[in-house]
């Protein structure tokens, strides 16, 4: 597994292996590498620094207790943590118990996110795709993803039919995939 930091000598997988052996320094390195991703996602969802810090703490403590939850063969660490951060933040937002254990989550990312540069390039594409979407489509996708609303809740909020919301969300995701495939 390549590292997210091009200057780092230790790969993400090596760090996880060290954490399995109880290496606290490896945990510190992993935190320094990915904490800003986890915190940013949680803050975007929760809009509250204290609550975002709680999510950050919770996720890294789970990783400390169960580093084997990350399956390097089936996911990228940055993407995996981003999805977990989003899910946990939504759970916190809706004041519900976490729906999934972190080890249950498989995230398949085919895009190159190895280095900061690769990630930035991919993010530019994603932001471009979002900007290019019709506003109602982007809004439906963001409400579902960053506010954790169900399609029926979005339909209720926007006054649009359920089927329209479903179609918009799927079309948004297809547009995202299309631009990333280029």
């Amino acid at each position: 597994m390549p590292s997210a930091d091009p200057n780092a000598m230790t790969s993400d997988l090596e760090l996880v292996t060290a954490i399995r052996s109880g290496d606290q320094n490896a945990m510190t390195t992993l935190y320094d590498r990915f904490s800003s991703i986890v915190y940013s996602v949680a803050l975007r969802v929760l809009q509250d620094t204290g609550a975002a810090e709680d999510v950050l703490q919770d996720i890294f403590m789970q990783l400390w207790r169960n580093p084997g939850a990350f399956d390097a063969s089936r996911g990228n660490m940055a993407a995996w943590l981003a999805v977990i951060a989003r899910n946990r933040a939504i759970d916190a937002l809706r004041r519900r118990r976490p729906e999934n254990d972190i080890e249950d989550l498989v995230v398949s990312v085919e895009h190159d996110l190895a280095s900061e540069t690769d990630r930035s390039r991919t993010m530019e594409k994603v932001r471009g795709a979002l900007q290019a979407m019709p506003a109602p489509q982007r809004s439906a996708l963001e409400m579902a993803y960053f506010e954790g609303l169900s399609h029926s809740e979005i339909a209720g909020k926007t006054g649009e039919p359920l089927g329209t919301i479903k179609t918009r969300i799927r079309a948004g995701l297809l547009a995202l995939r299309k631009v990333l495939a280029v």
Partner: protein
Amino acid sequence: MTVHEQFAEDLALYALGSLDGAERHALEKHLDGCASCRREIEQLRGDLSLLALTTAGPKPPARARQRLMSAIADEPRLPAAAPASQHRQRSWWTALGLPALRWASAVALIVVAIGLLRQNSTLQRDLASLRSRFTDQGSKLEQANEVVATLLDPDAKKIELVAAGNNPQPRGKAIYQRRNRNLIFLASNLPPLPAEKIYELWLFPANGGAPIAAGLFKPDARGSATVVNPPLPEGVEAKNFAVTLEPESGSHESPRGTPVIVGVGE
């Protein structure tokens, strides 16, 4: 998309966690048996993770790092035990260097393997026997269901056969199983109910106790009616059954009306 097209929109919503209710349940059922759709969910989560990664925001405050490191220090983890244990075992073998012991272990392993093979064979036989019994029971249950469905089907043609030349008389048949408190009662040729009246089935206990109410019922247009498993007290031995014509409203704790049909015993 390389997924079942009918699930395409629901898969997107599911990956977002936005699918709820019956649709979510139906999709999860489908996902249990569809590797292609499970793979699509993983890819959709991957696409969505990129959406999450676009949230470039401030770095967490230093206190968050300090808080985590303190928590980790308070919860030290021991190094994984398995590799160390294997290493110790290898050293022990090498130190002793006893080929005879290795042979003995190999023989022991073979004996255990043979034992397991035999056990496996027995288990296979047991499984085959259980499967056969299961199939047999399933077939019997299916037959029983068909019988009950036919008896209870309001559209089924029910024709009472009586001696030629006689007018059809009201008839009833009660089948009662004391052990499980099961009662099936079938009636036919019942006269139409007068206004504000209803039929009531009664169980007469063998110990001479007071009759027990066993269900109110109204016949259909052809005079047929069915009562199945009414609530009954436990362990009552039945001496007889009867149907009376009762007021529709009021108490039904004891028969007050006219008997319509009464059991004659087996």
